[in-house]
């Protein structure tokens, strides 16, 4: 899902929350304890609003169909539910409506000091939520599958293997990218460097032409400098990571416009 035009909902998220520290794949997740206003529809009423209903359902259980009313034992491995700052209930409602309208099954947002994940369980493909850490600076994370198709188990396996990292074909995931970009992803775990040495020029810039053998960056792993080749032809349209940033396997490094 690309950028959304609701200022309150997106402002903080699309803001430079994507500072270098937060782009690390190994970024600390918000484990700070604090009030979580997500837990409660504190105010009465508003039970009929779609957004609110979904919020409650997420809180209560994850099993059953999407939006099902069944009482099942809550298992709630929601992980980090503590947030340092209170989340405005209006914001939350808007987010929930947004999720519902757009038909998402999973939604994740991270800001300074807080991270929120909302998941709507359906019988859809066992989608693999793309973590913000593994994809480039983007405020929202789109599921790779729509919730409407009940898939057989066989294709579920495919879904699992091919889903991340998000490639250009799965649709606009980078804010501002608009069209499909071929993504060069990291084949290893390590530290990303844009140039051969601290004083050298970067291998490529936005606008640089690349061919299959063009070295686009170095990823250092265990003291070894690995040159990463483009393996494609085109122009560099996006650079998703910063110099010196740790990267994980499959993390998007560059967006190439194939020509």
């Amino acid at each position, binding site marked *: 899902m690309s950028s959304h035009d609701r200022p309150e909902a997106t402002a903080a998220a699309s803001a430079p929350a994507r500072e270098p520290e937060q782009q690390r*794949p190994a970024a600390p997740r918000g484990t700070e304890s604090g009030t979580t206003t997500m837990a409660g529809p504190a105010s009465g009423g508003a039970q009929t609003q779609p957004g609110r209903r979904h919020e409650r359902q997420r809180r209560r259980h994850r099993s059953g169909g999407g939006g099902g009313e069944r009482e099942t034992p809550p298992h709630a491995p929601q992980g980090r539910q503590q947030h340092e700052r209170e989340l405005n209930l209006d914001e939350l409602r808007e987010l929930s409506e947004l999720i519902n309208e757009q038909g998402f099954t999973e939604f994740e947002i991270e800001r300074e000091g807080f991270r929120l994940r909302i998941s709507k369980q359906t019988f859809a493909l066992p989608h693999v939520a793309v973590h913000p850490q593994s994809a480039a600076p983007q405020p929202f994370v789109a599921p790779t599958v729509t919730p409407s198709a009940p898939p057989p*188990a066989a294709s579920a396996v495919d879904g699992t293997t091919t889903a991340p990292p998000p490639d250009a074909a799965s649709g606009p995931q980078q804010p501002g990218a608009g069209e499909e970009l071929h993504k060069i992803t990291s084949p290893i775990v390590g530290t990303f460097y844009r140039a051969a040495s601290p004083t050298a020029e970067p291998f490529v810039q936005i606008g640089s032409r690349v061919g299959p053998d063009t070295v686009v960056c170095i990823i250092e792993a265990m003291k070894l400098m690995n040159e990463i080749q483009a393996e494609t032809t085109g122009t560099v349209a996006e650079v998703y990571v910063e110099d010196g940033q740790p990267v994980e396997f499959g993390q998007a490094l560059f967006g190439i416009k194939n020509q």
Partner: protein
Amino acid sequence: MPIAPRKFRKILIANRGEIACRIIWACKEMGIRTVAVHSQADRDSLHVRFADESICIGPAPSAQSYLNIPAVISAAEIANVDAIHPGYGFLAESPQFAEIAEACNIKFIGPRSSVIKLMGDKVEARRAMKEAGVPILPGSSEPLESEEEALRIAREIGFPVIIKAAAGGGGRGMRIVRTEDELGPALETASNEALAAFKNGDIYVERYVERPRHVEIQVMADEFGHCVHLGERDCSIQRRHQKLLEEALSPALTPELRAEMGTVAVEACKRVGYANAGTVEFLLDEDGRFYFMEMNTRIQVEHPVTEMVTLADIVRNQIRVAEGEELAYEQKDVIFAGHAIECRINAEDPMTGVPSPGLITACNIPGGPGVRVDTAVYPGYFVPPYYDSMIAKLIVHARTRELAIARMRRALEAMVVEGIKTTVPLHLRIMDDPEFQAGNYTTKFMERFYARNGGAKERAAAAEPQALAAR
């Protein structure tokens, strides 16, 4: 050589599934930050969700992810961790991995790589144990050089014998030989299988005990030479050498035998300079004699039953020992209370054992008194086909074995997993089995159980296959 204890700030868990979660729980209780590594297929895993940080290290296949040493070490470096806990399986018993971690100044939570290497070579381990005064089964003390040698030794020790891979373990790469005629061909195939599975065709031969019990002793040692044992586990209930169910303590042991086996295990550990958690596996024959089988230099799947009866926290102990702390207790402080049983819940057809990966649509984890569930599944979780099929361990603890069986039965009934097949029905039947209830079983149990309960297909699934499936 005493070194100042150093507290870990951050630990990387080089594993997945329930054991990764188990290690995370211990770390959380100790205030240690956790880093999870995962394959692309495990992005939605519980261990990734609950760790403080997570790093994707490769695509789904284990060889490119969880077994990928450069990827794991690189992740440890960029996350700047103090130590790595390897869990069980994967790289837990890789001396190379332990060595590389140490070379990168990251503490490997386990024994030294030289000890891992020693125990990993089954021939060398036998020799080391023999020198340490541990009873071993009569057999060859070196890898077999020729068929003539094998025949000579087999005649000395008496048939039936079993041929084993020196680099093998965990029930793989083995062949039973009952007559002299079978020996030649069996040696050939065993060696080829060993070469294919473990890249090492060395084999040795041992006396084969027809109806043994598999009893293992949990040991815990610090880096200063102190070592204790935490009692035994009976793991005789196995299907194709894969454990299905474990108990602590063993119905077969008297306190005297326990003390004897425990002492032997501890002495052996001290002799080889063992540190951290470990398990010495013994074979108990029908006359109550025990023989060393192998030693596992890591935490084991079934460690919870020991934790329940001793109130020990083995993972916590592992971390403390690795931090350089001395063992806080002595053998006399080790107590045993009650009885514990663990059932391994696998995503498999309960009778045939055929794997059943897929989407878990509904799931209830049992609770109540004396019930512990170590798991990484949740409703909506997709059990991937790439890894081990175990999805949960259901453990119960009660005052007596009889009460524990009743408790396990009711817990199993409440262990609801829908969308995939699991071994829950099998365990329910085992709980009702008279031979199991009597406690008088050997490693032949599953074969006999199927004969009582199943048809020919299921018997075949349980039986000792001559063409051994490496699993």
